Each structure stands twice: as C-alpha cells, then as structure tokens.
C-alpha cells in the first residue's frame, strides 16, 4: 500500500484530475477595449433603444453563465432607429423593476435557471439529443425531402438517413450564410469540402472550386465557420462533406 502511494502521489507535479463525465466547453478569447480615463468624444451613437423587458436585474445575474451570443428573436424585434433620435432616452439610468427586498441566492439561482431554460437555443451542444427531439427533427426533414421529390439534388445516395442528414446539414449552414442579394443576374457557385469528426465538429474547410468572387467565397467560409458543429453523423465513417453553394434559389 505504501509502495503504491509512493509511486502515485496525489499532488505530484502539475498533474490534475480530469472528470471525463463532465462536458467540455470550448470558448473564444476576445479582447475588450480598454476604458479610457478622459471622455474625448461624447458617446454619440450609444443611443440604443431601451430593452423592452424589465428583467434586467435577472439578466445581470445570468450574464456570467450565458455566453453573450445575440438571441435571434431579440435582434429581429429591434427596430432600425437612428442613434440621435434615441439619445435623450438613453440618458436615463435603468431602474430596478421593483422595490421589494433583495431576493435570496436560492431564488436568484432558480430564476436564472428558469431564464436559461427559456432562452436556451435548440442547437446548444450541451443539450442531449433525446429520442423525442431527434424524432421530431427527422420527421421535419422527411417532410422536406418528400416535398422536394426524388430528383432532389441535395441527396446523393438512395439512403433515407443520408438524405435526412444532408437536409439537416443544409439547414444548419444555410441559416448562417449571409450574402447581399443585389445581383441576381450573375449566378455564382463555390464548392467546399468539410472534414468532420464523429461528433459533427467541423475540423477543416477547403475550397475545391472558387466562385471567382472573393467576397462570395468568404461568405461561404464564414457561414461554415459560424456553424462550427454539425449534427452528429448518422454513420461513423462519414468524415467528409462536399457542399456546393449557389447564389440563386432554385
């Protein structure tokens, strides 16, 4: 026993214990601008519209937990207002929603968890794919494949699972693909190869055929970069996905 302990001391060097059952979160490191001491320029454009909901107190509690990715619903609801028109409104500090006694830590935690569940996005990776969720997703894709018909160019094989997976991949990347639709007279196409792992994480992106327009190629690469993770492949052997991006709708 003593011999075992001497060979495997618990705090030898920098070895630390890793719990493989806990999920791993990947984060991006960003640099926030340093606050300058003197106010050189008055904050002219900081005239954001007021937040419509009065749960700012809870949001302040929740911010350290939730990655600050802008929720699509809130962006869609925001109006395009000029900053000058809202300047006066922004001068007022935000007030607390109520004057009740400060909530207990347990209540704050419970409220924050409720808020997380409410705002959690469907594509969050930490959410396990329950059978109901997967069944619903497959059902939606089946309907989509049915509408497209047998000549659907999005599916390369005869496998239904392959078609369904292809539809999922297409939907996920397409929602992140932004490109100004001003020129509908010149069709553009670019072919890209993705290398993925067994979890669906995109490991590598290679442009096989350029569209000839650098901005179009970049928009495609950006869509893939923002997607980052695809649905878990239906087949462990699936490691490459070749996607042809077309500027025009069918």
């Amino acid at each position, binding site marked *: 026993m003593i011999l075992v302990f001497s060979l495997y001391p618990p705090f030898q060097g920098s070895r630390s214990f890793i719990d493989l059952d806990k999920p791993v979160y990947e984060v991006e490191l960003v640099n926030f601008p340093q606050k300058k001491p003197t106010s*050189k320029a008055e904050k002219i454009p*900081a005239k954001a*519209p007021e937040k419509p909901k009065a749960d700012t107190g809870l949001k302040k509690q929740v911010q350290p937990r939730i990655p600050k990715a802008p929720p699509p619903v809130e962006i869609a609801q925001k109006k395009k207002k000029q900053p000058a028109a809202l300047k006066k409104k922004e001068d007022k500090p935000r007030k607390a929603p109520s004057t009740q006694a400060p909530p207990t830590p347990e209540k704050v935690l419970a409220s924050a968890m409720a808020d997380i569940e409410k705002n959690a996005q469907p594509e969050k990776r930490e959410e396990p794919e329950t059978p109901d969720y997967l069944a619903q997703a497959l059902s939606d894709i089946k309907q989509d494949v049915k509408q497209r018909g047998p000549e659907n160019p999005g599916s390369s094989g005869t496998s239904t699972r392959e078609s369904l997976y292809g539809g999922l991949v297409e939907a996920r990347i397409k*929602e992140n693909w*932004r490109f100004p639709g001003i020129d509908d007279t010149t069709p553009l196409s670019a072919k890209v190869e993705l290398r993925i792992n067994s979890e669906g994480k995109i490991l590598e992106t290679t442009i096989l055929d350029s569209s000839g327009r650098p901005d179009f190629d970049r928009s495609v690469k*950006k869509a893939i970069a923002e997607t980052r993770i695809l649905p878990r492949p239906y087949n462990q052997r*699936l490691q490459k996905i070749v996607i042809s991006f077309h500027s025009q709708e069918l």
Partner: protein
Amino acid sequence: MKKIIFFLCTTILALSPFLPAQAQEAMHINIYGPGQKKINLLVSQALALQESGPAPDEVRDVEQTLYKNMEFLPFINIMQPEDILGGTELDGVTGKDIDFKRFALSRADLLLTLGWVQEGAGSVRVELRAFETFSGKLLVGRGYVITKPYQTVEAVNRFCAELMQKLTGRNGFFRSTLAFVRKNDGHKEIWTSTPQGRSLKQITDFKQYCLSPAWNWKGTMLAGTLVGDKKHELIIWSKKDKRLRRIQLAGNTIISPAFHPDGRLFISIDRYGNPDIYSLNAEFEVEQTEVKNWAIDISPQFDRKGENMVFVSSRLGNPHIFLLDLRTRKVKRISYEGKYNTNPDISPDGRYIAYSRRTPDGHRIIVHDLKTNTERQVTHGPGNDEDPAWGPDSYFLAFSSNRTGEYRIYLATRQGDETKMIPTGPGEATAPSWNPAVGR
C-alpha cells in the same frame, strides 16, 4: 517456418497504423441561395485620433449621414450597440488596433470605423474605414478634410458610393440626382434632390403646372411639359447656365418627353389630332415620326444603348406596354395582364421594363425581365404606386405613391425589397426621373 510466420506477423503489426481501418465516406450537398440576403453592419463609435475636446458637429453630422445612408440599402442590416460583445468602443480605427473576433462572434459582417482630428478652427479631418470582420480585410478607407457644412454629406456619399461599389459592383445610388414634380400653393414645379432626399432645389417657378421631368443622358439638361392655359409647351432647363427655355410645338398637347442617348428628344404630340411619338433635332424641331398609329402612343423611354424604346399604346383598346426595336422597327408587346398598363421605363442595361398596372387593389409596379420573359410585382401599396423610374444601376426604382394619403416619392428595388420614402419636403411629389449620369 516459425521465423517466417513471426516476421510476417510483426510486419503486419508494424504497418497496421498506416493502413486505413475503414473506407472514409463523403456526401455531397447543394445549398441554393443564402439564408439571409442582408449582411450585418455595425458603425462603431467615433474616435478622436488625438487628444482633443468633445467631438465637433461635423463628426456628429458624418455619423448621422452614415447611418441614414446605410438605412437606404435593402441588403444592409444595421446592428445595435448592445448586439456586440463588449460594445462598440474601439482602441483604434485601423485594422491592427481592432480585435475583429468579437465582432465576428457577434455576427457582424462589416465594421465601419470613424476617426477624427480637429485641424484648426473650422477644419476637421475625418477618416472612414470599412472592414470585413471575418477576414479583417479593409474594404474601403478614405480620409476627408471638412471645412464647410455641405462637404459632410459629400464626403459620406463618396465613401458610401465606394463601399457600395465594393460590395455590389454598383455605385450610382449615392452619386446621382432625382428630378420630380412637387405641388405647392396649387402649382406644380420641377425640383431636384439626391435619392436620399438631400440638396433640394427648385428648378422651375412658372406658378403653373410643370410636369414630366426627363434628364438627358449626360445629366446636363432637363426637359418637361408646361401646361399652359390654351396649350402645352416644352420646357428645357440647362444645368450649365441654369437657363430655362419655353418651346411651342405643333398640336395642343405635349406628353412625356424623353431623351435618346444620342441627344435627340422624343416626345408625344398630337400634331394631327392624335398623340404620336416624334423625335426632335438639336434645335427641338420635329424631325421624324417614330410611332404613328390610329391609337394613342405616348411615354417613350430608352435604354443606355438606345437600341430599344418602350412606350404605351392603346392600339389594342386598352393601354398596354410595347417595345420598339429602333433598328428593325419591330414592335413587341410586353404587358398581357390587366387592362391598364402605363408609365413604362426601361432599365439602363436594357434588361428590365418597369411599369404601372392597375389592379383591383390599386396601381402596382411591375418589373418585366426581357431575358426570361417573366414579370414580378415589386410594390404592394396600399393606395396607388405609379411612375417608376430606374436608377443608373438598374437596381433601384423610384416611384410615386399615395400610400400615406398624399403622393410621395419612394424607393424600391427590382427584387421587391422593402420600400423607403425619400423626403422631398412639403407638398405632394410625383413623376420621379433619375439622372442616368453618375456623379453629375
């Protein structure tokens, strides 16, 4: 024998990591069309490039003008400051001072930075830059020295024109001029402004009815119709010397003048009692009959090459749109739907014809694609949408509409994007005409 077997097993084991355990699979997918046809743009806070006091008014004006210009572009979505990780403050305005990652994570596609330096009393140097956040690439970077108020708008318009050229290959929107008719005190006069509604100028002051403004292709002249007490007159305004001429022609009515790219003016007059289309020479004398018919033929318009002329004719009993090939003199019918199709305009690139069609819900603007022979309704009221006029980029359309109760000038696109009103001051505004010469 045992040695051979042992050697083979060892070799296989040694090479096994290099053999593919299983064949890799690949799948092919096609994605047709982006999920979003708008790109996200963020305008960062103005930043003083040197130690100085508060930002001068010129900087505020530049920022306001920049926001307003971007709002006109239907393919741009302006982001709010709270959408950005860490806000919109920057440590600098050049690429090396900016951490683009937080903007890219916030899904901002474009970042506009504004730096300024006070260079003495009444002089401000402004630096405008547009970056693509994904690559950190500088798309457009320009510096301007502003000494007078009107230079603010000019500087921002030039920057926006360059940015639009970079993004779309077109730049006519921020460097062109609109003419239109505005009603005040019971009179209708011809005015001009930018497509953003700035630099409003009154051209005519006859205190009568001046209608149908039309630019020549060099942007140096405006033609129009003056409705007199007894008959119509042709009016010609020269941009160079600001001179207005009144010309009388045969007949009583003068309708819808339009300049051909070669400089000739085409016009509809009732020389023989029935409106037909004629061409005038450089002295504005009737030179040639272009379209003559028992019916009413009016509203000629041309593409940039001058090979095709679109016009309205009631030869089939109702007003419909027709296309005349000026080389072969063949007439082709364009509109088939509806019973009242008027105000055609052909895009400068010659591919699209926009016109107004009366529907049960009111007049609507239709765009006909000559290449695919298909058409699309691009406005949806309410009220009446009329008088479409193509921009020099063959993308934007100006038109007049009474959707708010009073006729105003609006902007649309040939793809049917959201329309925006152009501020033209008090009074009803109709009959827009877009100067095809960019930068004039």
